[in-house]
């Protein structure tokens, strides 16, 4: 059943990128960034998941080919990545807030003083 997760992860990433490319509202662009991030997180956590595996508490000598557990490293990575994602969202939203104050709009077509 893991295929569903991978398909879902890539679907989230593609949707997020679509949102970032097609939506002209800054808030929606930020939502798109969030979606891309969730897709990546889902992908990592799926990479380490074993259906029915136990908690990964072993010493190295107890490990053998038959031990069946959920890989803890991807979960640690995902946690880190979620925290980073939250920071990205917070930071971009604060920038959006300031941009709205300065430019008076959230439309990306009008926020292009730096071009050429």
């Amino acid at each position, binding site marked *: 059943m893991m295929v569903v997760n991978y398909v879902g992860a890539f679907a989230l990433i593609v949707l997020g990128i679509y949102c*970032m490319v097609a*939506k002209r509202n800054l808030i929606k662009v930020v939502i798109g960034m969030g979606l891309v991030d969730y897709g990546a997180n889902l992908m990592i956590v799926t990479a380490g998941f074993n259906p029915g595996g136990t908690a990964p508490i072993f010493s190295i000598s107890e490990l053998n080919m038959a031990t069946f557990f959920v890989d803890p*490293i991807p979960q640690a990575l995902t946690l*880190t990545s979620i925290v980073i994602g939250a920071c*990205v969202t917070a930071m971009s939203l604060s920038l*959006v807030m300031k941009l709205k104050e300065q430019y008076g709009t959230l439309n990306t077509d009008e*926020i292009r003083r730096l071009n*050429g």
Partner: protein
Amino acid sequence: MNILNHFPIMSVMVLFIGAFVNALVGRKSSAARNGVTFVAITAALVMMLALIKPIMLDGEVITYWMGNWAPVEGWAFGISLEVDALSLFFALIVTVAVFASGIYSFTYMSHDDSQVNYYTLFLMLSGSVLGLVLSGDLFNIFVMVEIMTFTAVALTAFRTNYEGALEGAFKYLVVGSLGSTSLLVGIAMVYSQLHTLNLAQLSALIPQNASNPVLLAAFAFLFMGFATKAFLFPFQPLAADAHAVAPASISLMISGVLTKCGVYGIVRLVYCLYQNWDLPFVQYLVTGFGAVSMFICVTMAFNQHNFKRLLAFHSISQVGYVITVVGLGSILGISSGLYHAMNHTIFKGLLFLTAGAVQHQTGSLDLDRLGGLSKRMPRTTILFLIGAASISGLPPFNGFASKWMIYQATFQQGMSTGNPFFILVCVVALITSVLTLASFIKVSQSVFFGQLPEEYKDVKEVPVAMRVPMWILAALCVVTGVFPNLVEKFLLLPATNAVYSASAYIDHAMGADYAAAHGVFSNGILGIPASNCWQPATWLMLLFCVTCAVAIVALLGSPNDSKKLAISACDEDAEALDAKYESFFSGEEAVYSQVGGSDLFWGFKHNWRKYFSFMHDWHSGIVNDYTLYGAVAIAFVLLACVILL
């Protein structure tokens, strides 16, 4: 245990701890703030310099396992820092640039408020970049990339009221996050196949599984992730936007340090992790990206009216050189790429600092309004000219030596393989160099020479404290240019050797014979083919470059053309009635007409107007478009890697 083994982690930690101490004590007193910053950046620099002897000269590799969690039974679970000559080479670049930028900030930022935030973010940026190049763990590289991107974005927007600062920062954040996600997806794919993230172990395992399609896709994602951080084409608009609005000391960091992280990542990825020595496709891919970036960015620089935005495009153009030759996969290619990467940090840092000095004293970066500052700021002018000569590749400065090696590397590759692609790349590199020179003639004309506008009559020279870091960088420009043999011996040869001998890197982390057991053998190199930059033929080449630059001015701006242009320009635009658009320059009116930078090469610009207007529209400034370019590039590389490899 030798104290030197602890230096890598200490140098990273001292910067991060400095950041937090700064936030605690630096709120009130500027002396405490500057003191903490100075101690942190100096300590990091000194520690990296102390590592030169064991790593560069004795060829050691330092592996530091956090919490002493060494690999168990051939599996590296712990987090490690691993420093070989390649890492140290980039770490030296980083610490020197951080040092110059920090010293410069003390005066440059002294008029801003909430400086404590500036220095906290600055030290975190420095620490993350140093952590990135010293890290021995793929996921740590991702974390450091993220810290680096955030702090760089925050610092770009530091002067929130500066025109466009928020906008540049937001674009950088959005498109930068696309690159970071690409990196993260690549890391997830690598982990799902090989169940390890340690760089040394991956270097041993990946070449064994070279035909695994998931790993090839991971290569594409990782490559594009690092390419975003190096601002390669099509990510160059971000760099331009961010540089133009960031404080000059941060422009130095973005151009000199952040792009180098991308370069480091690409070298590490292509040659250590994937070890694609003779794969023609990877050569085409990396070299092609580099060549396109260097050409497009240098032409974009012609159109710019903002001093720092122009420098930003040149910066990416120079990074394009580095990536171009790194992609060749020859000894000369990699060593010249590393050499140019180092030189780029030095001269581009110097140029950004002079731009900052101009901004600090005049309050403007507009090339059309500035002028004649050489009368008021002679020392800054000299420093700028040193930097401009270096970036244009004029002897005896460092840009000449490394660019010479670059031409040689591309030409040799073309000759030995008989492939017209590499000859074309060599020609593009030469043309780009000529255009760089022409473009810097334009900048020096519009900022430092010509008429001094009325409003800048009372401009003063910048304070000594700001000139010191500029002189340090200028001296480095000369030293690394005049003594290329020393640079080669102490820095380039060990670093190139490290690129070629992944097995030493692997064995030191994973235990002896791990590399050999996985089929990775050392192919260390003995020397770099001579760079020959002091031969008469090189001076001939210089003459050729100068002649071309003069020819562009002389031929394309010939009197007949300009008359026609003047007439057509008059029709379109009332401003064109300015005396300087007349067919000849004389008489009362013309004397007082300022020849601006954009007037110098207008013949050239007129002949290429379709291309320039296309590129101008392409850099639309809309964040959605930039995301689209990035997504298309990632999709392209992904498809190409999976289908063609």
